[in-house]
């Protein structure tokens, strides 16, 4: 995605701790962000993601650890001397200034000559497609327009790192999709290193080069959206980035050559192709089964490989997909059936067969 891996990281966090009084809110976080990369801090509220962003921006002091921006330690620099710019969730646009004055504020503070400010503001307005809005007051703008102004203002001084704190959460659902695409496009075009904070895991997956999943002041996993979704490090992450069905089992055999692996479960044998090397023969495992990865069919008596039979408890048809709740033994499994064709029959079906995919990811069970 245009990220240059070989250069020096633009931003390095080294063993960051943050205490508020006795309360430790960041419990040792280390991370490298490459130049031009968009990294998202994502996690449930209270996980420390916003605090971490504020630490990078300089609004809060780190208790211990180092923040290194483009090779320079910036722990002790106040925000006005740091080459990071933040875009707050509520945009924090100055309501007593026009759009142009807002965007030009940082330039004026940094003593740019007036004609250069004008040119730069014009350029930025054009970039966020608000060419004709320069003289408007802030309260005469829609939410999406305010978002663009905030974005332009943060970009005005060409920061080394752009910090975005839940920038889309004040927009309605449709606009949020549009804006996140625009932000991503601009970010890629400008190759600006960006740290994005959100609690919305789907937004995080859609927009990021890499996700940093946080919980309780710690990083749980760092990885590309695909890695995080398909190969989550633990149950929390598996459940955080989407719905998941877990199923316990024990590794019965692993074929070293083909990676064909047999798992014994209480419902029968499941065969998969093992794609991870942290699992060995005899391990107790949890299978991470995504609702959309399972094939569901009407029970026709015959049983194939990886097919379990179950009772259809509910079938909720919603056009592009149907949500099926299936009882397999005493276990409830949620299955998304996309492009549901036999809806009519499913509606009245009682017995169904579900096919567990061979690509299932495994989590080692903690004993």
């Amino acid at each position, binding site marked *: 995605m245009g990220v240059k891996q070989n250069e020096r990281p633009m931003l390095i966090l080294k063993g960051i701790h943050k205490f508020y009084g006795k309360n430790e809110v960041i419990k040792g976080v280390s991370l490298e962000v490459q130049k031009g990369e968009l990294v998202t801090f994502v996690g449930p509220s209270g996980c420390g993601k916003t605090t971490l962003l504020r630490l990078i921006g300089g609004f809060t002091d780190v208790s211990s650890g180092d923040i290194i921006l483009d090779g320079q330690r910036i722990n002790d620099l106040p925000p*006005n001397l740091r080459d990071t710019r933040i875009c707050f969730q509520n945009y924090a646009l100055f309501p007593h200034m026009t759009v142009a004055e807002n965007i030009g504020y940082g330039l004026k503070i940094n003593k740019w000559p007036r004609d250069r400010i004008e040119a730069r503001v014009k350029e930025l307005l054009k970039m966020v497609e608000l060419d004709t809005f320069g003289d408007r007051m802030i*309260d005469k703008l829609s939410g999406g327009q305010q978002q663009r102004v905030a974005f332009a203002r943060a970009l005005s001084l060409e920061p080394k790192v752009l910090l975005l704190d839940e920038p889309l959460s004040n927009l309605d659902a449709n606009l949020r999709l549009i804006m996140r695409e625009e932000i991503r496009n601009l970010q890629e075009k400008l190759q600006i290193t960006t740290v994005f904070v959100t609690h919305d895991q789907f937004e995080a997956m859609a927009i990021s080069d890499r996700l940093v999943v946080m919980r309780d002041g710690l990083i749980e996993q760092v990885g590309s959206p695909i890695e995080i979704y398909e190969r989550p490090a633990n149950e929390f992450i598996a459940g955080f980035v989407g719905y998941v069905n877990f199923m316990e089992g024990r590794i019965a055999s692993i074929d070293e050559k083909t990676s064909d692996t047999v798992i014994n479960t209480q419902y029968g044998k499941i065969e998969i192709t093992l794609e991870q090397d942290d699992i060995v023969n005899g391990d107790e495992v949890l299978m991470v089964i995504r609702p959309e990865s399972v094939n569901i069919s009407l029970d026709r008596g015959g049983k194939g490989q990886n097919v379990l039979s179950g009772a259809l408890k509910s079938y909720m048809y919603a056009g592009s997909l149907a949500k099926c709740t299936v009882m397999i033994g005493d276990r409830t499994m949620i299955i998304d059936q996309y492009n549901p064709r036999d809806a009519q029959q499913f509606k009245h079906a009682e017995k169904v067969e579900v096919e567990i995919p061979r690509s299932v990811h495994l989590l080692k069970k903690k004993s």
Partner: protein
Amino acid sequence: MVTAEWSVKLQARSGSRAKDFLNANLINILAAFLFLLLAFFLLYPIIAVLLKSVQGPSGFTLEYYRAFFSTDYYFQSLYNTLLLGAINTVVCVVVGFCLAYMTTRGPWLLRKPLKIIALIPLIAPPYLFALSLIILFGRNGLVTRALDLHWQLYGFTGVVISQSLAFIPLAYMMIESTLMSLNPNLEESAYDLGATEATILRSITIPLLAPGLLKAALLIFVMTIAEFGNAAILGGRTPFLAPDTYTVITGESDFNMGSVLSVVLIVPCIIIFFVHNYLLEGKKFTTIGGKPVASEPRKITPLVLAPFVIITTVAAGAIFVCFGVVFVASFFKILGVTHNAVLSNYLDFTSNQAIYNSIRVSFMAAAIGAILGVLMAYVIVRGKFFGRSFIEMVSLSGFALPGTVLGIGYLLAFSAPPLKLTGGIMILALNCVFRFIAVGVEAGISKLHQIHIEIEEASADLGASFLTTFYKIVLPIMFPAFIAGFVYTFMTAIVSLSAVVFLVSPGFDLASVKIFDAAVYGEIGIASATTMKLVLIVMICMLILDFITKKTKLGSSMKKSAAV
């Protein structure tokens, strides 16, 4: 058959038309009743003052106004009063802003202690500061004697200082609440874009705060020009309008001139009330709300911090010293003159009698005021009748009225039939009720705004009549507002001086009047002890209020109205 039965039932239901009419119009009937009360006890006395000021022995005359403006003394009095208001306003707003800035943006450690000190004057009657200045700098003042000063604080300087100290908390509370509502991300954004602390203050904080500062300034101005106690106790030979009114009435029984002085005092108050409530209404910058983030302290450069620290320290120190001095003085007959500590000031019969009287009057005022407050709030918020906003305006205008005006107004209006009240305790209570009615009304309004009308509609939908709904639904929900209105009216009434000083009858002293007299006659010990008793009472009220506010989340809107 079934339909016939139904129609019979239906007829039975709508049986008494008079009852239905009553039910549907009860809120209007209530409104009319409340309006009559307001008209009679608030508007009528004011009109009486206006009439008296133009009513000569042979009908209408402007002679008294001519006399006022052609007498140097009165002109000086007007000038002094306006100048006092202006200086006070500037001092209070500046100090209030510094304090508010420190308690909302300053280092964590300083926030709480500064806030407490800034709010301490609230528990004191405003004239405590006049009293403490007499103890320190009066004729027999501690400092005066220690340094053998020939300069005394009586006069303009003394009044300015005591008034400023007295009104700092009001300015502080108003400015603090606007500062708190200012999204801290705005200042952080400016910081982030490279601004220094001084630049943030100049380009972001102060411009955004301007409407709030202006509101606070207007209110302080109105309150200080109308304030009676400090000017009367410390004014010496320097004329001010409020105490002059008192002298003219009690000394010379010149009601005409007294009324003229009152009207002159009313005019700026009314103008400012309208500016405050209508011109400035909605003049606020709105921003998109996010999660409320507590404003973390910034690394404020010493150059910016220094003036804030100096101003807040001086103000906090002065407040502290004034309280301490009055407290100590309450244990001496005359502090600095007599040297053995005594408890006799606290045991003084006349002082305790006055406290007892004050409690009685204030209790009556609080009970009536709180009930009327809740009812008026209900009518104002839920009523849909013509003149609703008029009732709101009248009921909330009480605070803008100088106490002296309502004092004279009550003397004029109720000293003769149809309703003769003078000489009794009732006139004192009613005076307090209608002077401070805004308090109860504001408490009620702020609580009512938290109740969705759907709750009442649900009740009505289930078949309850207006009265049942009001009784079973509205009253229980409004109860915290009632208690808050009660306690606040009580503590405001018990320290109030400017109106009741006209209305007390000989032999029936109120605590505030007793303090005033004692201070004027040099009975410093008695005055101090009585003041401390009032402080104690107000403190207890504050604790109760705080408890209620926390219990019921009556919220900051109430606090704001408490500031008014």
